[in-house]
C-alpha cells in the first residue's frame, strides 16, 4: 500500500469513528439502556410492574415498551409516564440520549429533586409535562433551549427561585403553566412577548409587585390565571384593549386595586371573569352587559359600590354571578330575571335594598340563591320556586323581608340548605318542606312565623341542623323527628308548641343540642332522652313539664348544660345525675322538686357557671360534698326548706362569685370563706337562725369558738412583737423546712449570731412562744432580724 493510500484509509476510519458517537448517543440501544438505568434509580419498592417490559432482555423491542413510542427511524419519540406511580428523580436520566424525543410526560408521579439543566438536550421536544410531582429548586434557564417547545407544564411542584426570563425565548410556546409552586417575581422587563402563547398559568406562587407587563403583548392569550399571588397595583388598561381573544381571566386572591374601566367590554370573547378577593373599587361597568359570551362572573370580596348593572340581563349565557361581600347599594334590577341560564346567584353581604323583582321567579335553572345580610324588604314574589325545580340552596337571612314564604318555594323538592332567619316572615311554612328529603340545614329562627309545625316536617335523613327558635309556631313535636337520624341540632325554643316530648327523640344518637325551652309542653320528660349519648346541651326550661327527672339523664356523659327550670317537676334529684361529670351548668330552679340535695352533686367537678336549685321544696341539709365544686361561680339554693348549717366545707369553693341561700331554714354559723363574709344581706335573708360576720347577720355566741381567738392571736402576735425577745417558729415553704428564731428590737448580741441580715419575706409558720400555741398561717416577716436554719 502506498503511504498516501494508507493515510487516506486511516483518515477514512478516523472519520468513520468520529461519526459513530453521534449515532451512538441517540441510538435505540443507548436509549434503551438509558431508560433501564433510569428505571433502576427509582426509589419506590413498588417499581411499577407495568414497566416490566423495560428490560435488557427486551432491547430489540424498544418501540413496544410500555409508555414508549418511536418515530419512523426506530428511536424513541415519546415517553408517556403520566400517573405511573414512579418515585425517584431525574438525576440518573441521560437527557443527551434523547435528542429525538418530542413528547415527555411525567405528570402525576412522585419525582423529586431538581430539574437538571441537561434537559436542554431534548432539542426536538414539543411537549413537556412534569406537573404534579415534587420537583424542587429553580427552573433551569436551559429549558429555553427547547426551541420547539409548544407545551410546557410544571404546575404543582416545589419549584422556587425567580422565573427565568429566558423562558420567553420559547417563541413557539402556546401553553405555559407554572402554577402551584413557590416561584418568585422576575424582572418582567426582560421577558420578550410570546406571540403564540394562548394559555398562561402563574397562579398560586409568590409573585409580587405589579401586573407582569409582558403579558400585554401576548395578544393570542385565551387563558390567563394569575390567582393566589400577591400582585398589587391597578390592572393596566392594555389588558382590556390588547387581549381581545381572552376567554378566561382569573385574578382571584391578590392585592389588585383600582376601578374596572368600561373598556372591559373590549374583551368580547370573555367567558369567565374571576377577580374575587382583591381590593377593586368603583362601580361594576355597565358595559359588562356587552360581553355576551360570559358564563361566570365572580367579583366577590372587593369594595365595589353602586349598582348591579341592569345590562347583566343581556348575558343570556350567564350561569354564575357572585357579587358577595362588596358595598353594592342598589336594588336588584328586574332585568336579572332575563338570565334564564343562571344557576348560581350570590349577592350576600352587600348594602342591597328594596323588594325582590317578580322576575326572579323566571330563573328556571337556579340552584343556589344567596341574598343574606343585606337590607332587602318586602315580600318574596308569590310564585318564587314554582318554575325553579332545582333550587337546593336558598338564603334570605338577616334582611327585613316580611309576608309569607312562597308556597311553592320548595316544589322541586331539591332543597338542601334553607335559611331565612332574622327577618319578619309570618304565616305558615310551605307544604312542600315535608317532602324535601335532601334537607340538611334549616334556619327559620327569629321571625314571626305562626304556622303549625306538627306536620310541617317529615323524615329527613340528611337533616343535620334545624332551628325554629323565636317565633310563634304552634302545634306539637312530631315523633317523626326521631327518624331524622343525622340530626345534631334541634332548636324549637321560644315558640307556642304544646303537647308532649315524644320518646322517639331518644333515637337521635347524633343529637348534640336539644332546645325545647319556653314553649307550652306538657307531660313527662321521657326517660329515653337518656340514650342521647352525644347530647351536650339540654334545655327544657319554661314549660309545663310534670313528673320526675328521669334517672337515665345520668347516662348523658357528654352533657355540659342541663336546664330544666321553670316547670312542674316533682320528686328527688336523681343521684345518677352525679355521673354527668362534664356538666358546666345545672339549672333546676322553680319546680316542685323535693327530698334532700344528693351529695353526688359534689362529684360534678366541672361545674363552673351555675348550680341553681332555688325555688323548690328541697329539705334536709346542704351536703358537705358540694365543697368539692372548686370551679363553681354561681350557687343558688334560695327559696327551699333547707335546714342545718351551711357546711364549712363550702369555704373550699374558691371560685364562687355569687351565692344565694336566702329563704330557707338554715341555722348556725356561716362558713368562714371570704365569699360568705363579704356577701350582701340578700344572700342569707329569710333564715332565722344563721349567724356570723356577714352583712345582715348577728354575730354568733362567742362561747368556745376557737377560730375567733385564732385571728385574735395573730393580731396580738403582730402587735406585741416589740415585747418579744425571741420567738422560735417552724416554717415551711414548698416542702422545705426552716427553723426561724426572731430577734426583734433586741440589740443583745448573742454569741455566734453575729450581724443578722435585714429582710422581708413571707413564709408559712407555726410555733411556740410566750403567747402559747401560735396558729399556723402565713406570716410576713418585715424587716426583722432573725436566723434561719434549714432543717430536714
Amino acid at each position, binding site marked *: 500500500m502506498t503511504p498516501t493510500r494508507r493515510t487516506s484509509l486511516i483518515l477514512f476510519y478516523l472519520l468513520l469513528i468520529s461519526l459513530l458517537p453521534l449515532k451512538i448517543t441517540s441510538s435505540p440501544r443507548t436509549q434503551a439502556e438509558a431508560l433501564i438505568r433510569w428505571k433502576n434509580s427509582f426509589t419506590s419498592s413498588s417499581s411499577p410492574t407495568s414497566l416490566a417490559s423495560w428490560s435488557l432482555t427486551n432491547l430489540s423491542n424498544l418501540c413496544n415498551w410500555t409508555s414508549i413510542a418511536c418515530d419512523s427511524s426506530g428511536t424513541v419519540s415519546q415517553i408517556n409516564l403520566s400517573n405511573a406511580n414512579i418515585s425517584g428523580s431525574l438525576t440518573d436520566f441521560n437527557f443527551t440520549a434523547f435528542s429525538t424525543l418530542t413528547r415527555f410526560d411525567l405528570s402525576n408521579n412522585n419525582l423529586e429533586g431538581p430539574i437538571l439543566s441537561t434537559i436542554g438536550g431534548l432539542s426536538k421536544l414539543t411537549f413537556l409535562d412534569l406537573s404534579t410531582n415534587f420537583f424542587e429548586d429553580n427552573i433551569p434557564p436551559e429549558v429555553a433551549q427547547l426551541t420547539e417547545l409548544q407545551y410546557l407544564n410544571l404546575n*404543582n411542584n416545589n419549584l422556587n427561585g425567580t422565573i427565568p426570563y429566558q423562558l420567553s425565548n420559547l417563541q413557539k410556546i402556546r401553553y405555559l403553566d407554572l402554577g402551584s409552586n413557590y416561584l418568585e417575581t422576575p424582572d418582567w422587563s426582560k421577558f420578550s412577548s410570546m406571540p403564540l402563547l394562548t394559555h398562561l398559568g402563574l397562579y398560586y406562587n409568590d409573585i409580587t409587585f405589579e401586573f407582569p407587563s409582558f403579558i400585554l403583548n401576548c395578544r393570542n392569550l385565551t387563558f390567563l390565571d394569575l390567582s393566589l399571588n400577591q400582585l398589587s397595583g391597578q390592572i393596566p388598561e392594555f389588558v382590556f384593549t390588547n387581549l381581545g381573544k381572552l376567554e378566561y381571566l382569573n385574578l382571584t386572591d391578590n392585592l389588585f386595586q383600582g376601578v374596572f374601566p368600561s373598556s372591559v367590554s373590549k374583551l368580547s370573547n370573555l367567558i369567565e371573569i374571576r377577580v374575587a*378577593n382583591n381590593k377593586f373599587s368603583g362601580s361594576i361597568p355597565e358595559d359588562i352587559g356587552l360581553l355576551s359570551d360570559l358564563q361566570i362572573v365572580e367579583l366577590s370580596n372587593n369594595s365595589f359600590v353602586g349598582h348591579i348593572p341592569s345590562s347583566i340581563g343581556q348575558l343570556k349565557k350567564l350561569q354564575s354571578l357572585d357579587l358577595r361581600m362588596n358595598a353594592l347599594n342598589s336594588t336588584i334590577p328586574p332585568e336579572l330575571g332575563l338570565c334564564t341560564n343562571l344557576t348560581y346567584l350570590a349577592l350576600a353581604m352587600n348594602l342591597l335594598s328594596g323588594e325582590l323583582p317578580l322576575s326572579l321567579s323566571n330563573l328556571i335553572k337556579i340552584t343556589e340563591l344567596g341574598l343574606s345580610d343585606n337590607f332587602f324588604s318586602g315580600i318574596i314574589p308569590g310564585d318564587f320556586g314554582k318554575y325553579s325545580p332545582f333550587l337546593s340552596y336558598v338564603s334570605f337571612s338577616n334582611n327585613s323581608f316580611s309576608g309569607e314564604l312562597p308556597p311553592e318555594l320548595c316544589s322541586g323538592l331539591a332543597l338542601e340548605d334553607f335559611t331565612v332567619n332574622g327577618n319578619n316572615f309570618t304565616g305558615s311554612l310551605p307544604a312542600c318542606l315535608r317532602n324535601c328529603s335532601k334537607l340538611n340545614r334549616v334556619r327559620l329562627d327569629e321571625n314571626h312565623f305562626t304556622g303549625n309545625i306538627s306536620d310541617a316536617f317529615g323524615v329527613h335523613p340528611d337533616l343535620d341542623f334545624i332551628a325554629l327558635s323565636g317565633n310563634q309556631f304552634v302545634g306539637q313535636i312530631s315523633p317523626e323527628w326521631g327518624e331524622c337520624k343525622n340530626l345534631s341540632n334541634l332548636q324549637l325554643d321560644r315558640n307556642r308548641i304544646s303537647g308532649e316530648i315524644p320518646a322517639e327523640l331518644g333515637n337521635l344518637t347524633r343529637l348534640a343540642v336539644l332546645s325545647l325551652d319556653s314553649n307550652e309542653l306538657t307531660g313527662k320528660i321521657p326517660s329515653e332522652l337518656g340514650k342521647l349519648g352525644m347530647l351536650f346541651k339540654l334545655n327544657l326550661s319554661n314549660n309545663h313539664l310534670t313528673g320526675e327527672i328521669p334517672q337515665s339523664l345520668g347516662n348523658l356523659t357528654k352533657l355540659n348544660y342541663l336546664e330544666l327550670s321553670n316547670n312542674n317537676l316533682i320528686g328527688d334529684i336523681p343521684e345518677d345525675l352525679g355521673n354527668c361529670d362534664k356538666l358546666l351548668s345545672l339549672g333546676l330552679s322553680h319546680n316542685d322538686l323535693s327530698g334532700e340535695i344528693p351529695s353526688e352533686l359534689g362529684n360534678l367537678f366541672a361545674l363552673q357557671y351555675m348550680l341553681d336549685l332555688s325555688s323548690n321544696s328541697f329539705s334536709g341539709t346542704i351536703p358537705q360534698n358540694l365543697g368539692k365544686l372548686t370551679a363553681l361561680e354561681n350557687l343558688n339554693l334560695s327559696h327551699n326548706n333547707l335546714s342545718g348549717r351551711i357546711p364549712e366545707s363550702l369555704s373550699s369553693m374558691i371560685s364562687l362569685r355569687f351565692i344565694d341561700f336566702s329563704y330557707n331554714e338554715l341555722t348556725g354559723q356561716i362558713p368562714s370563706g371570704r365569699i360568705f363574709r363579704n356577701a350582701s344581706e340578700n344572700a342569707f335573708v329569710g333564715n332565722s337562725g344563721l349567724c356570723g360576720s356577714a352583712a345582715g347577720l348577728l354575730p354568733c355566741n362567742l362561747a368556745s369558738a376557737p377560730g375567733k381567738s385564732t385571728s385574735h392571736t395573730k393580731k396580738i402576735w403582730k402587735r406585741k412583737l416589740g415585747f418579744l425577745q425571741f420567738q422560735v417558729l417552724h416554717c415551711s415553704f414548698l416542702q422545705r423546712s426552716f427553723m426561724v428564731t426572731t430577734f426583734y428590737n433586741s440589740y443583745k448580741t448573742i454569741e455566734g449570731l453575729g450581724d443578722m441580715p435585714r429582710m422581708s419575706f413571707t413564709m408559712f409558720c407555726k410555733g411556740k412562744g410566750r403567747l402559747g400555741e401560735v396558729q399556723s398561717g402565713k406570716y410576713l416577716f418585715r424587716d426583722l432580724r432573725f436566723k434561719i436554719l434549714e432543717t430536714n
Partner: protein
Amino acid sequence: MGIRALFHLLLVLLFSALASTHANTEGDALYALRRAVKDPQGVLKSWDPTLVDPCTWFHVTCDADNRVTRLDLGNGRLSGRLVPELGKLERLQYLEVYMNNLVGPIPKELGGLKSLISLDLYHNNLTGTIPSSLSKLTNLKFLRLNGNRLTGRIPRELTKLGNLKILDVSNNDLCGTIPTSGSLSKFTEESFVNNPRLEGPELMGFVRYDVGGDCK
C-alpha cells in the same frame, strides 16, 4: 404531592360555597384553632367556616351581637397547639381548654383578650413561659395554668391583675422567685406547689435570698 393541588381545590370549593369565609374574623380565628388541633372525638366537627359566623358552632357561645363570649372545650381529648389568632376574640370571657393534650407555648397574643374573665389551660402539656402579656387582662378573675410543663419565671407583671381571685400555677416547672406584691400577695402556697425549681417568695430589701442557679 397533590397536597398543594388539593389545597388549591379546597380553596376553590370554599369560594364556591355560598357564604363568606372572610367576613368573620372571629370565625377565622376559631377555625385556625381547629386546623391546629387533632380532634378524635369530633368536638369541633360542627365548626363550619363557610357559615357567616361561628355562633351556631357547637361549644361556642355568642352574645346578642354575634361576638364570641365563651369557648367550652374542656376535656375534649384535643391534641395539637393553641393558636395566636385566639387573641382576636375581644369579647371572649371564658377560654376553657383545660384537660386536653395541647402542646406548645401559651401564645402571647392571648393578652389581647380584653374581656377575659377566666383562662383555664390547666392539665395539658403546655411548655414555654407564662407570657407577661397576660397582665393586660384587666378583667381576669381566674387564671388556672396548673398541671402543665411551663418553665421560666412567674412574670412580675401579673401583680397588676387587680381582679384576680384564683391563681393556680402548681404542678409545672417554674423557677425563680414568686412576686409577692400587688394581687399576688393574696395567694397561698397551694397556688405554687410542685414546681421543684421554684425558689420561694421573693425577698425584698437589702439582701436577696438567692439560692443561685439559672432561671429563664
